[in-house]
């Protein structure tokens, strides 16, 4: 299964993180957050490493990774685009904004563009309902996004 090689430096770094959580299986989610921060996503090899370090079974780690929507096994785009689909944003037309993004980047939700620049995902209520509909690109939050603004937002990152 190990079709990609993990950079040795990062492996040690991850082992260090596990040691910081004294290799306790109960800290799995904190470790996975750190790992996703480090590698950008959670390929099988990283999951095997985490399972080894926290001595829990790989199946258990995979079960946790596939349960939470935050963890992803495919690399996110360089600029991960998340469209808030909470009720407030939905009522103010988030769906039309999502369709517009899909049309421009011709990628389905959860996929990454071939050049790896953009990925689209749906978020469950970022909590800025005053600015509905809300779109985040990486850390930046865009408020009151209309379908017409979509083109402009994408161009900012081209």
């Amino acid at each position, binding site marked *: 299964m190990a079709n990609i090689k993990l950079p040795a430096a990062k492996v040690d770094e991850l082992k260090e993180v596990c040691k910081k959580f004294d290799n306790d299986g109960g800290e799995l989610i904190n470790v996975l957050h750190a790992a996703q921060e480090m590698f950008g996503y959670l390929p099988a090899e990283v999951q095997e490493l985490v399972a080894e370090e926290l001595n829990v079974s790989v199946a258990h780690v995979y079960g946790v990774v596939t349960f939470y929507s935050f963890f992803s096994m495919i690399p996110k785009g360089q600029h991960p685009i998340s469209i808030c689909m909470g009720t407030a944003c939905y009522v103010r037309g988030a769906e039309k904004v999502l369709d517009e993004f899909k049309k421009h980047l011709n990628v389905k939700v959860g996929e990454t563009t071939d050049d790896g620049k953009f990925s689209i995902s749906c978020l469950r209520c970022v909590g*800025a309902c*005053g600015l509905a509909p809300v779109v985040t690109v990486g850390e930046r939050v865009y408020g009151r996004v209309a379908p017409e603004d979509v083109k402009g937002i994408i161009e900012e990152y081209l």
Partner: protein
Amino acid sequence: MTKVKSLADLRKMKEELANKVQLREKSDHPDKIVQVKVSMATCGIASGAKEVMNHIIEELDRQAIDAVVTQTGCMGYCYAEPTIEVTLPSSNPVVFGYVDFKKANEIIAKYIIRGELVDGIIPVNYETVNDKKND
């Protein structure tokens, strides 16, 4: 950092701090201190509050106005973000909405310097439990 050893410590500390805050407001020496609070919750920041705050700080320095600009949590006026609260010495705080760079300059020029009100005031429609000023 002072360690709070007992309840008495805490109460003493509270008195000091409370005076310091009043002092800041009631100080009657000539260049009165203006207090500006910028609502820096996630949505505030998302609608540009951070840039507005930095702009206000620079602008106040440039015009050598003695002011204290601090960040604070969400005031609740999501529709009017970014929102800031300006307290001129010995007067009630006034909340302004839709504060972009242009509006910030207007507030500084008209309200802070000349005390004239500016469009876009958000009337505070609540009172808080322990905020003496409102009762």
